[in-house]
């Protein structure tokens, strides 16, 4: 089966810093793929490339096997790729409901909507309330400005938005970083439900227990590229941590070896 | 005041051998200076000379005029025609230009002292003010003049001379003086304000027609337009129309085209023979009104419309 979303050899340089250094990526239908890696490994840059927010200097992106070029987030979104960015991408001076539906507002039915393009403000507020309740986030009013929300509340708004609108792929960059125990649990449940709807999910997270609880496969990123893909069923947390720190290495045959041991042997 | 040229500058001319003449007006928003510029251009074309027209950004922009003169000298203008904003502010730049052998002629406005430039071609501005004053006084039928006086920019000789001429002839009771920079908007505001106090006003002196237009708007808004005699100076076609329609009572026509043409001719002559003109060349004036008054030579607006400058 062709992957839903794949990438080969992505490169992105910022002056002297190389954020992506020939990164590969593959997401299969219906799976939850975790992307893990150290701080600064280039995870966010990778998913920004996949969601059109960053244009890579080199490399190729394919959607269901077909090469695509994303010039902006809108291009990716047209393919049904929906993203929660690590820095959330919310407009602080606008309210929760407006942010949730930003760029995708719903109009009233009837002539008011068709002719006068009037928004269905009430309906959008109602639905915003519903998705936030689902995440167990307690906010007084959907007209509260995002800049007045707590860190976790803000993150919940971003997560709710992606969950509500993704139609082919949902990408989440550390969606639970600011969330409480319960709220994190709800997000994991939500990811589960999205998978049940048949949509694949990309989850970037530093939280290994979460990753191992939910992921079908784990993509390990290090120094700007993918160094391994493992299954949580067959590999331990320690192995994954070893891979992402560089203490372990995955050979071409899929076996994992300690880095110190391979010196001199891995040649030829 | 012949000053022999020492440094280069006047020796140069443009690539195609045309004499370069610079013109620096006060602004390029006042129609008067537009007419002056156009006439100079036409005359330069006729004589195979090149004219570069520069201006300050607003009436009173000494800094802009200084830079304009400097830049013209640099590019090798042999003659600079200038309508100096302010007699003290730009004399340094004029002197530097003359030191480099450039012929500098003042148009429209005298410098102070007059010999700061080689020659001056202008209306006798004191007299123009006097003519305005005489008419206004006569038009008031023996009532003493109670006037608002709308001046130009502070420190400019036109403004001072016209004002002095008017005061001498009309002997007004001064109900208030304001600097208008010769601009309509400022004149309107100034008049609106002065009218707050000057309830007995029966006449308004204006140094030029833009100021007169502003004064009229303010009077009209207060419903005083019929009661007050406005005098002015310039003689633009719009101004003559305003006289015709009764908005202003009188305007003293100037002849900017003649100033420009004469200036360009001096420049061309200088380029040919190196001869510099000196002294004050007066261009004439004409009192324009449709209500001629005894003892005052005047022309009617029909004549005015034939002879107005734009």
């Amino acid at each position, binding site marked *: 089966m062709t992957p839903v979303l794949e990438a080969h050899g992505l490169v992105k340089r910022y002056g002297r810093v190389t954020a992506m250094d020939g990164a590969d990526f593959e997401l299969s239908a219906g799976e939850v793929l975790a992307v893990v890696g150290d701080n600064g490994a280039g995870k966010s840059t990778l998913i920004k490339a996949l969601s059109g*927010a960053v244009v890579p200097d080199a490399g190729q992106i394919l959607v269901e096997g077909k090469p695509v070029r994303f010039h*902006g*987030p*809108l291009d990716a*979104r047209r393919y049904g790729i929906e*993203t929660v*960015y690590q820095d*959330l*991408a*919310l*407009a*602080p*001076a*606008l309210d929760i409901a*407006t*942010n949730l539906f*930003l*760029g*995708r*507002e719903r*109009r009233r039915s009837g002539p008011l909507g068709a002719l*006068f*393009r*009037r*928004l269905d*403000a009430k309906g959008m*507020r*109602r639905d915003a*309330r519903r998705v936030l309740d689902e995440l167990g986030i307690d906010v007084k*009013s*959907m*007209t509260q400005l995002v800049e007045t929300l707590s860190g976790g509340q803000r993150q919940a708004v971003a997560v709710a938005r992606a969950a509500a609108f993704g139609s082919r792929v949902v990408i989440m960059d550390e969606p639970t970083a600011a969330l409480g125990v319960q709220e994190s649990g709800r997000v994991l449940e939500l990811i589960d439900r999205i998978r049940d709807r048949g949509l694949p999910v990309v989850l970037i997270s530093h939280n290994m227990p979460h990753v191992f609880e939910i992921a079908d496969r784990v993509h390990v990123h290090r120094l700007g590229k993918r160094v391994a893909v493992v299954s949580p069923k067959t590999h331990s947390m320690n192995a994954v941590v070893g891979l992402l720190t560089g203490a372990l290495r995955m050979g071409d045959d899929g076996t994992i070896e300690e880095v110190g041991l391979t010196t001199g042997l891995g040649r030829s | 005041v012949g000053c022999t040229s020492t440094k280069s500058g006047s020796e140069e001319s443009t690539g195609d051998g045309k004499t370069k003449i610079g013109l620096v007006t006060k602004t*390029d*928003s*006042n*129609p*008067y*200076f*537009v*007419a002056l510029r*156009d006439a100079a251009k036409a005359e330069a074309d006729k004589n195979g000379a090149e004219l570069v027209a520069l201006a300050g950004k607003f009436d009173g922009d000494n800094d802009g005029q200084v830079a304009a003169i400097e830049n013209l000298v640099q590019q090798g203008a042999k003659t600079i025609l200038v309508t100096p904003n302010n007699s003290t502010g730009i004399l340094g730049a004029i002197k530097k230009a003359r030191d480099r052998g450039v012929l500098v002629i003042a148009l429209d406005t005298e410098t102070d002292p007059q010999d700061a430039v080689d020659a001056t071609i202008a209306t006798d501005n004191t007299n123009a003010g006097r003519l305005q004053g005489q008419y206004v006084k006569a038009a008031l039928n023996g009532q003493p003049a109670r006037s608002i006086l709308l001046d130009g920019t502070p420190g400019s000789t036109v403004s001072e001379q016209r004002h002095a001429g008017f005061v001498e002839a009309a002997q007004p009771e001064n109900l208030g003086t*304001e600097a208008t920079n010769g*601009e*309509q*908007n400022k004149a309107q*505001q*100034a008049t*609106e*304000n002065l009218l*707050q*106090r000057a309830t007995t006003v029966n006449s308004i002196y204006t140094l030029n027609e*833009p100021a007169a237009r502003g004064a009229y*708007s303010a009077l009209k808004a207060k419903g005083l337009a019929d009661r007050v005699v406005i005098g002015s100076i310039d003689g633009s076609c*719009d101004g003559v129309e305003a006289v015709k329609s009764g908005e202003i009572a009188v305007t003293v026509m100037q002849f900017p085209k003649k100033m420009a043409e004469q200036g360009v001719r001096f420049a061309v002559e200088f380029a040919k023979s190196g001869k510099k003109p000196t002294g004050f060349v007066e261009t004439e004036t004409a009192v324009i009104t449709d209500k001629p008054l005894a003892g005052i030579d005047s022309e009617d607006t029909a004549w005015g419309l034939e002879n107005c400058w*734009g």
Partner: protein
Amino acid sequence: MTTRVSPSEFILRTPAIGPAIALVVAVVVFGLTTDTFFNVDNLSLVVQQSLVIGTLALGQTLVILTAGIDLANAAIAVLSTLLIAKLTINGTDAPIALVVGIVAAALIGAVTGGLVTGLRLPPFIVTLGLLTIVTAASRLYAQGQSFPVTDPTLGWLGTTQYLFGQIEVTYGMAVMLAMFVGLWYALTKTAWGKHVYAVGNDPEAARLSGIHVRRTVLSVYVVAGLCYGIAAWQALGRVPNADPNAFQLGNLDSITAVVIGGTSLFGGRGSVLGTLVGALIVAVLRSGLTQAGIDNLYQDVATGALVIAAVAVDRFSRGRQR
């Protein structure tokens, strides 16, 4: 779920409340200290005096909401008056000339927007450059003349009517009101409006949310250009004379109205209602000080101080919330 809003929150969330308080204070003070300010026709005059700057300021509000600024707006309106007047004088039908003038203003708006979005240049520089260019173009076009306008269509906005035989209103006021309502609706009730705010508040977040940032900004400059064209029409209604030297301070005056109205120069926060109030405040100050018999230069001093005070009132009325 219903959303009830407490008074203090209402103040915080309604950017026009502060300026409105300042306006009321100014009106009351002038009403009490002068005999003439409260005359019905004086109040009407104040509104008329605010029409041109107010209309320019409506366009300016849109631009500022996107974190831009338009220094060329008044110059564009002036060029538009010249176009309209000269075309009419040369025999074009007045309504057609009017449409040409307004469309021309919108086109210049499109050019501005194109430079800002296409080349990603700071709006300040683009509109400053255009200010110089458009002003020069007006002067070249006018050749030192100004053009009286006599056609009734062109002066129509200045036509006075009496409501209840008492209250002097002009069609210009009606047009202004209609524009205000239209823009208020577009900004608060349509997706376009939300996008305008989002783009001004955080352009990167807007981009990542899938908003066509450039298209939105471009559309704002076009709509603003339309406003300037209509301001030209308003100007002909006030003063039936197209003059290349008019409204030289219109750009700063319109920005003043916008800022007094509580809209942030950093974009994303503000309202057209505030702008309307801001334009009225300035007109009230001028008129009130005149009624009080204060001289021009002292009026300037007082206006300067009162403009600052008006904004201080605004800050104070919401400052408590911090």
